[in-house]
């Protein structure tokens, strides 16, 4: 029987695993399909590195492109240079969006080394198209050079500064060892501070420029072209930087919570069972209410209890119990919401046990603790196990209460459900999808576990039945040796066959209870004998 059982279980596991893998593959494929490639500019190709692009026709490329959405009017290292945008290191290309013009500056040295004649409209256009492509990529929803080009005139130049209206644009100015692009008031006297002068004139220098791009213009050969990744690679690269801490936090929190819930839930169910009906009703309501209440209410109550906002919370904090927004708070939240599941299942299982059987054990002198350990636990075990798995799942899925009471601290209280919500909210949809996949896989595993366990416990029952049948068949032999306590031998044999608990045959017990007390002896051997040898000579 056991030898057969192992391969069957393995087969089922394998089949279950295959199902999970299939589901995972489907979800992954779906997620990858969502991340469709972005359309590129017609002639300009994107480079492999971020902020790079090349145009094979003109032989030009750009690397290290960065877009600065806003500048600052602060002095650089004590030097007032006007409203300035930073430029990336090594920049020789600057593009500036001004109220009436799009200004593109190429450093003279760069134009020379690339043999670029900016007076040639084709070359100027080629440079602008590179800039516009990269600017579109970096715009992130802000204005786009390509859109602005329709209403503004394009100036591509190598002049160090350009004056338009009230503003002078200086493309390349060094201050504090760094390069900047600056906006200054037009016609500024030599040596005057531009920001102060602008203030005196009532001019807002920030209005003179919308945004600024900087980059390095190079030959197209110096830019590595982008390799179009497959959808799977794309998905892999997007999840390769995922911080796995929510998984560990989730597992750590739920297992700790489960251990506490398991003990508390069983004890509560056991003791509730023994109390009077009125008290029992009250206790039952108190223990079950976290399941009925919305988790946010539990979280709010816990926050009030332990937080600084209430006298109780302040008293607790003063006495060293500072739990709000810590990992312990996450565990407590998980315990509170998972406890009713454990308690309810255990109570249901205990109550479905035959009270007469428990009473029988009491008459045999078993202590309450022993009845709980040796009788109630093993008999109710399949239900308790299922309750444990449910409680674990609930602890794992806890969101509202945890968020309220423990907050969202990555690596400390950020569990998977919280990570999913916040990743989605902060625009990292791919990471959120990754966690959704993980949760689905975990849930599959949990459900499989329940099913496998149910199958196993049924087999256990069946085996027990066989053992009982065997015991009955062997009964005459046991009778022969009963007088000299040969029952011990019988008990050992039966322990091998099916375990002692199952051998407490209710019918036999009832008969035993009907007999005068003198015949039963004390404790377990008597019970063992009784089931091994149904008396009454039927």
């Amino acid at each position, binding site marked *: 029987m056991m030898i057969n059982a192992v391969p069957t279980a393995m087969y089922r596991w394998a089949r279950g695993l295959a199902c999970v893998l299939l589901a995972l593959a489907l979800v992954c494929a779906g997620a990858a399909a969502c991340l469709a490639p972005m359309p590129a500019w017609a002639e300009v190709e994107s480079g492999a590195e971020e902020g790079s692009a090349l145009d094979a026709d003109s032989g030009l490329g750009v690397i290290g492109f960065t877009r600065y959405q806003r500048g600052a009017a602060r002095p650089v290292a004590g030097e007032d240079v006007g409203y300035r945008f930073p430029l990336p290191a090594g920049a020789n290309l600057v593009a500036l969006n001004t109220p009436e013009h799009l200004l593109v500056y190429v450093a003279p040295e760069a134009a020379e080394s690339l043999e670029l004649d900016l007076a040639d409209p084709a070359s100027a256009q080629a440079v602008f198209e590179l800039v516009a492509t990269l600017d579109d990529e970096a715009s992130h*929803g802000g204005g786009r050079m390509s859109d602005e080009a329709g209403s503004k005139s394009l100036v591509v130049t190598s002049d160090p500064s350009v004056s338009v209206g009230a503003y002078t644009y200086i493309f390349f100015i060094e201050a504090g060892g760094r390069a900047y692009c600056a906006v200054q008031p037009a016609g500024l006297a030599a040596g005057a501070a531009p920001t102060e002068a602008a203030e005196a004139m009532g001019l807002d220098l920030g209005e003179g420029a919308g945004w600024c791009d900087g980059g390095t213009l190079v030959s197209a050969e110096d830019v590595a072209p982008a390799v179009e990744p497959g959808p799977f690679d794309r998905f892999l690269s997007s999840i390769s930087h995922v911080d796995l801490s929510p998984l560990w936090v989730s597992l750590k929190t739920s297992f700790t919570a489960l251990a506490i819930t398991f003990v508390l839930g069983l004890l509560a169910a056991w003791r509730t069972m023994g109390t*009077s009906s009125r008290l029992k009703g009250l206790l039952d309501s108190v223990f079950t209410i976290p399941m009925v209440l919305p988790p946010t209410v539990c979280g709010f109550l816990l926050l009030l209890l332990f937080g600084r906002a209430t006298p109780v919370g302040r008293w607790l904090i003063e006495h060293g119990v500072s739990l709000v927004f810590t990992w*312990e708070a996450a565990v407590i939240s998980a315990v509170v919401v998972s406890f009713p599941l454990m308690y309810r299942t255990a109570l249901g299982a205990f109550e479905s046990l035959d009270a007469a059987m428990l009473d029988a054990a009491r008459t045999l002198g078993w202590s309450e603790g022993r009845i709980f350990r040796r009788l109630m636990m093993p008999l109710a075990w399949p239900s308790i196990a299922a309750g444990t798995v449910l409680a674990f799942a609930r602890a794992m899925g806890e969101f509202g209460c945890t968020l309220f009471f423990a907050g969202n*601290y990555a690596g400390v209280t950020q569990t998977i459900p919280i990570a999913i919500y916040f990743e989605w909210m902060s625009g990292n949809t791919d990471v959120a999808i990754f966690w959704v996949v993980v949760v689905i896989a975990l849930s599959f595993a949990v459900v499989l576990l329940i099913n496998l366990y149910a199958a196993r416990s049924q087999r256990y029952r069946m085996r027990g039945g066989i053992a009982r049948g065997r015991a009955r068949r062997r009964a005459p032999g046991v009778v022969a040796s009963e007088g000299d306590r040969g029952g011990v031998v019988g008990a050992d044999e039966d322990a091998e066959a099916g375990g002692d608990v199952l051998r407490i045959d209710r019918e036999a017990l009832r008969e035993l209870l009907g007999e005068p007390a003198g015949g039963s002896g004390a404790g377990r051997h008597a019970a063992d004998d009784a089931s091994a040898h149904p008396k009454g000579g039927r």
Partner: protein
Amino acid sequence: MSRATCSRRKFVALGGVAAAAALAGCSSQTDSDTSATGSMPVKGDATADDVVNLQIFAANSLEKALPDVESLYTEQTGVTFADTQYKGSGDLVEQMRGGAPVDILITASAGTMDDAAEDGLIDDDTRKDMFTNELVIVRAMGSDVKVDSLEDVASVEGNIAIGEPGAVPAGKYANQALASAGLYSNVEGEDGKYASSIADRVVEADKVGTAAQYVATGDCTIGFVYSSDVYRYDGIEIAYTCPAESHQPIVYPGAVAASSKQAKAAEEFLDFCMTNEDALGVWAEYGFELA
């Protein structure tokens, strides 16, 4: 009868033991866990020799830019950061009231920082205005919705995402802007009513990023966010920039928390944010203008 009383008494005793065990369990977990992961939020007790680990509470709109500046700072000084909380400014102040350990608070409005100051949550001497921002109306990327004035909001079809004004400063600014166009009843931007032409289409968001996300996912046609939010979310673009005079000036004040055990280190970081040229580059990239 006697057994019933006995078991009841036992039960009470058991409850006491369980509660004690739970508390003891908690405290012992604290010890073992802190040493195991070393990434608990800062709880104080940090002496000068300890590695400085700063806990920052920052306005939700800083969610993409601030981590870059933090990693710059870690590179240059070795100071590390606990997981920074990015929520609606009102929620952050509420969380501080709740007893969360904090070193630095950066909010998206003077009002929320005033609230924190009133409750003695921040050190007023360290308070300074850090950034300015613009209020914009966004639409989904490529959408053909046209908004040329605040009055146009009433004629836009579909839902309008606005931050919940109590917790989200951007929502309050948005309501002020709407009030300037007669679409909201209270010029303060709070405790008012939306005009009937938009009232049933306003979707309130718990933070400004959520409003941006509602528009990006298509749940809302337009939304009121900061221009810096446009750059940190994919899939949205600026449809209209609200005139600066339509709402109170948008400033981001920053301050060291009154309860900070490492106030000096916290103040140094605030200085770094405002003066370091690399940090300034990051702010410029994400569209924050220094105040």
